[in-house]
């Protein structure tokens, strides 16, 4: 099954009841699969007039109680940014899949990229936290799509799946687990009296309880800075309350949310940090370096946002250098540099997959790390 098909299947297995999108290369195969299958699941599929409308419709659908998602690539992802902000502000669970291609602008539509990683984190204006996952195989396209829905429901927030053209188009054997084995989470629903409901009753965990539209709560929500009641209030205190709650609900749980895959990092001199399709070439390069007798570990980000700052900071104390290959000109690299705080060297390498020298260049960077850094 292709990564795209696995993503659509993962969404349906997760109980996704609504998909709105605008067709865009290289994200089309997810739409095709979903459009062919949604009837069987009682879901809704609609092609909207643009990506702005697609994410708007997704947010509206999410408030009816459905799990909702949209699928796009760079140019559409840019258009979605205003609704990412609204999704964050209305604390609306939803999933956004970005099948990354080369940018900027229209770039090269059918080549894989990782140039939207920082946009995923900071793309909408104002202060917020986001959750983003980076699958590296069709299997993970399935598993992480399910996980994305679970996280979005658990934390009442938009969750992004930051994949790329390679993973989306790659075909591999994969296993769809029996339905009973797929653990699904549902948003916390408010159970109290109807006239007492507060849409943003930020409790200890900062995740407010939700209700669906049409249940008689007569609630109000707004993209303006608001109080617990959902009413707009224009003052610094409410701004602080509102924004702190949005930030804290992710920050306080970042250890629980962050997922990564580490191998041989304990006694490694150099740790190669990667994510998505790049992690596959990184693993190959590390194997070759090990065969040369070098002590190299791999660290694969599965959750990219929130960033596993603590773990990288710890590794910076034991490893001497990080090598960070990316299909961009340095995005997550700067996060590694920030978390290393000068305690370990950091080496960026452009992961040039399209000309088939991806592994070689990562290997070169590992060599460079050994030669130039304290690792030598």
């Amino acid at each position, binding site marked *: 099954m292709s990564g795209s098909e696995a993503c659509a299947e993962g969404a349906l297995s997760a109980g996704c009841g609504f998909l709105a999108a605008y067709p865009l290369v290289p994200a089309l195969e997810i739409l095709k699969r979903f459009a062919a299958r949604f009837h069987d699941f009682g879901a809704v599929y609609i092609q909207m007039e643009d990506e702005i409308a697609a994410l708007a419709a997704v*947010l509206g659908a999410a408030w009816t109680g459905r799990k909702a998602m949209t699928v796009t690539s760079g140019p559409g992802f840019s258009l979605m940014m205003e609704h990412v902000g609204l999704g964050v502000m209305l604390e609306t669970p939803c999933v956004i899949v970005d099948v990354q291609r080369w940018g900027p602008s229209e770039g090269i539509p059918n080549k894989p990229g990782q140039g939207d990683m920082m946009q995923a984190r900071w793309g909408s204006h104002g202060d917020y936290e986001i959750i983003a996952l980076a699958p590296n195989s069709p299997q993970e396209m399935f598993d992480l799509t399910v996980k994305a829905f679970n996280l979005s429901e658990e934390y009442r927030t938009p969750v992004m799946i930051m994949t790329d053209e390679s993973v989306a188009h790659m075909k591999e054997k994969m296993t769809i687990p029996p339905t009973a084995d797929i653990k699904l989470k549902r948003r916390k629903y408010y159970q109290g009296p109807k006239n007492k409901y507060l849409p943003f009753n930020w409790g200890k965990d900062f995740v407010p309880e939700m209700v669906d539209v049409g249940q008689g709560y007569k609630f109000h929500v707004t993209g303006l800075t608001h109080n617990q009641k959902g009413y707009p209030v224009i003052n610094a205190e409410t701004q602080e309350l509102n924004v702190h709650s949005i930030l804290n609900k992710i920050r306080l749980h970042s250890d629980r949310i962050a997922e990564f895959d580490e191998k041989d990092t304990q006694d490694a001199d150099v740790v190669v940090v990667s994510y998505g399709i790049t992690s596959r070439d990184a693993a190959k390069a590390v194997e070759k370096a090990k065969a040369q007798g070098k002590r190299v570990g791999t660290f694969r980000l599965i959750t990219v946002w929130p960033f596993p700052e603590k773990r990288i900071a710890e590794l910076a104390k034991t490893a001497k250098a990080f090598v960070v290959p990316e299909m961009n000109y340095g995005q997550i690299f700067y996060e590694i540099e920030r978390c290393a705080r000068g305690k370990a060297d950091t080496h960026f390498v452009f992961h040039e997959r399209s000309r088939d020298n991806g592994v070689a260049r990562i290997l070169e960077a590992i060599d460079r790390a050994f030669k130039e850094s304290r690792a030598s």
Partner: protein
Amino acid sequence: MNTLESMTKQDGHPIEPLLRMDRIPHIWCPGCGIGTTLNAFVAAVNKLDVDRDKLCVVSGIGCTGRVAGYIKLDSFHVLHGRAIPFATGIKLSHPELNVVVFSGDGDLVSIGGNHFLHAARRNINLTVILVNNFIYAMTGGQVAPTTPVTAYTTTSPFGNFEPPSNIPQLAEAAGAVYVARWTALHIRRLTKSIVEAFRKPGFAVVEVVSPCSMYYSRLNRMGEGIDMMKFYHKNSVIKHGEPTENLDIKFQKQIIVGKFVDRERPAILGSSGGPDAEAEP
């Protein structure tokens, strides 16, 4: 306790059950037409005998966008121009809900123009109440795509030089099945049109020509809000069924009002959760 307060305390204002009284006083200026339009909407809801739990309002940004914050229904105050696609998501997901989009001219036909066209094309069952005050009022009176030619705004100090949109024609051409226009002083006719639009399956649009008593009136020397409201009312002529191409609004000239479009058109099909669940192509 003044008279109004004592009336409200003792008997309750008739529209009180549908308002968020904890948010009153509202932000609209004296003489603004949005309040009367909201009043007409509430009167329409009372006439409609509709389950209020199954009725929701989506507004965009702007003066009219604030309606969602005052109406005591499930209500969403979303992004500028995006009320229609947000409402589309709700309606497709939960077709039994009645979804009303209540927003202004700048929101719905400028920044949200594309969504307006495509919702009309889909003929999705939404009721759109579009308050047209010819200006961006919330932001301080900038020129709008509805500003009549030669009218002054803060950003057209020598008079507007762009031809404005003819909203009924736009709605009809795009596929709306119900299109009416009234001024904010045609309370009973407006209420009746909102009722009809609500009952009409498909995309229904009611344009409400409304005075901006703060910016448009001041910049164009039209007096107080009430003078402006009376001016629009006096200079309007009811022509039901008038071809929408004749509905351009010229500066300080006659405004044609009435019901212009009331027709049947195929709607988005049931497989997508649309209103026409039983219909087959």
